[in-house]
């Protein structure tokens, strides 16, 4: 029983973090119809920014997180304006290939800059834990979970309560109609991409604190984002949160009770099943389905 409770708690904590990893990916896919294969590298880039700040200036990763988000915001804006925007109207596999090339470049650049070693951001407090009965909850994971869920909720509020957020939603629903309403679609797309990269960067700082990372972990984050985005429905922030928690729980329980990496097979099995039965995702709204099917 304790084992089950412990793995459930870990699953939920990890799930909140995965939601923050995936929320930007889902946003970009839902709004821009671009599947960003380089999303995982943005997460790892965020980890490196926070790690470097922690190493050279002793900045706590939960402060470094904001620096990572800011760096990735600027980088994301530039990547969109210089690269993604050039093929935004091309058939979908062009954007997939472009971001695949970008992933190769970024991963290799990180290996050259930081080597391929696994690293972790050291703090004095994150590994200490509170005990609730027999269940251990490390402070770092708890703080990471709270920040991740908080940021995801903040993004939800931003999308539905600010002019920019509404402009992003409107562009996602119908780009041409939005442009006729005076929305500058190119800037909106760039901002969306930048927000997604910033969220990934913030997630990366937390990932680096509660676990280890290396350039090679980037593709795994992209794949997890896939699963979460599809489970939750594209562009649906609440869906990303729910999908993240589900995936976190499944992985944690699977790791406890199944042998080897069979849990990954189950995650992809669930992904394919959801796609076939309910392509709009578990919480997806029909208009996303209608719009994305081009």
């Amino acid at each position: 029983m304790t084992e089950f409770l412990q793995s459930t708690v870990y699953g939920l904590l990890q799930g909140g973090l995965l939601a923050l990893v995936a929320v930007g990916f889902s946003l970009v896919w839902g709004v821009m119809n671009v599947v960003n294969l380089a999303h995982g590298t943005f997460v790892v880039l965020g980890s490196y920014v926070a790690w470097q700040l922690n190493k050279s200036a002793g900045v706590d990763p939960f402060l470094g997180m904001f620096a990572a988000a800011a760096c990735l915001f600027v980088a994301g804006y530039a990547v969109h304006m210089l690269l993604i925007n050039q093929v935004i109207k091309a058939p979908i596999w062009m954007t997939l290939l472009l971001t695949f090339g970008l992933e190769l470049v970024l991963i290799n650049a990180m290996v050259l800059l930081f080597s391929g070693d696994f690293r972790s951001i050291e703090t004095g407090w994150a590994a200490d834990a509170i005990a609730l009965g027999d269940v251990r909850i490390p402070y770092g994971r708890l703080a990471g979970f709270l920040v991740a869920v908080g940021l995801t909720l903040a993004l939800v509020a931003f999308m539905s309560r600010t002019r920019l957020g509404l402009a992003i939603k409107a562009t996602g629903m119908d780009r041409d109609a939005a442009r006729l309403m005076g929305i500058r679609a190119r800037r909106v797309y760039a901002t969306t991409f930048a927000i997604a990269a910033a969220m990934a960067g913030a997630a990366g700082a937390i990932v680096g604190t509660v676990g280890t990372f290396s350039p090679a972990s980037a593709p795994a984050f992209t794949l997890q984002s896939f699963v979460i985005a599809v489970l939750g429905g594209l562009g649906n922030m609440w869906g990303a949160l729910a999908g993240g928690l589900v995936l976190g729980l499944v992985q944690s329980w699977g790791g406890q009770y199944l042998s080897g990496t069979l849990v990954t097979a189950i995650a992809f099995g669930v992904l394919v099943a959801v796609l076939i039965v309910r392509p709009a995702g578990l919480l997806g709204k029909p208009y996303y389905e209608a719009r994305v099917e081009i």
Partner: protein
Amino acid sequence: MATDPQAGKPASAEGPGGARRLGFLSGRAGWAAAAVALLFFIALPVQLYGSQQRTLAAAFMFVALAQGWNLIGGFAGYPSFGNVVFFGLGGYTTAILMAKAGASFYVALPAAALVGLGFAALMGVPVLRLRGHYFAIATLGVAEGMREVVLNLDGLTGGGSGLTVPAVGIEATTSYPGNAGFYYMFLALAVLATAVVLWVSRSRFGYGLRAINQDEDAAAAMGIDTTRAKIGAFALAGVITSLAGAMYAFQQVTIYPARLFDVQITLLMVVMAVIGGSGTVVGPVLGALGLQFLSEYLRDNLTDYHTFVFGVIIVVAVILLPQGLVRFVREGWRTRRFSLLDNVRAYRL
């Protein structure tokens, strides 16, 4: 709906004098060029070192893989991102039959093709109902899931520690063909795959696939059995890709799930087909040979940076040549206008 990249350009094939200009390397000139290239590649191995033969064999393998993707992604317009699943299944079918059942390679090879065919048909029925990104992600999910299944069936596949085909000594079921043998084997497969694509591009079936690519609902309304055509294209791709996987498994002797189901293989075949020209016969051949040589050249000369440079080349090629090399040259030949800048302008916002 795909936007027309040629919008705003003169679309007429008529030259200034009204006479129709010949297409670039069309008709007899094209056949002659293909025959010369084939003879050249048949005669070449005598002049090469073993390592060069291996490099070329890998390039031919990618020609076959890119042509397989071309059928489903280029002609039917269904961007499969999980074609590597056939590669892995073909490889593991061969290795299991040879290692566990003591079968000859020449029995295992058709068995691998059958497994590829069967799996494509089985997987195609539900997955080909999805469109666009959903199809891409579903196929990716199937491939990644299959890798994990193979990884966890330790008893049959050896799991992460790999499976070794008996290739030498008394246990060998088929004598190992060596570098030159695999060179000709992969060359034959590349020629076969290209011939299949050539046949498809000129058949009623191929025109049906192109119609599905442009507008599936309209194609169905015109009387094309879209489900059958799509599954047919997917199954052909599955057979070609699993044959490549079978030969690769025998060539490598020891195979691992992480290598045979590597998502990079899928991405490479897509890159090669698209940069050469998806939906054309020659495009994937040029794309695969060109990128494979480039990759080898970079590996030899820029050991640390080769992936970096390769990634930059992909990014630049996607932006500058979104319609692929073959269509760019063909269009430029017809209009006497080769402008990369027009390409960039075509798809930007």
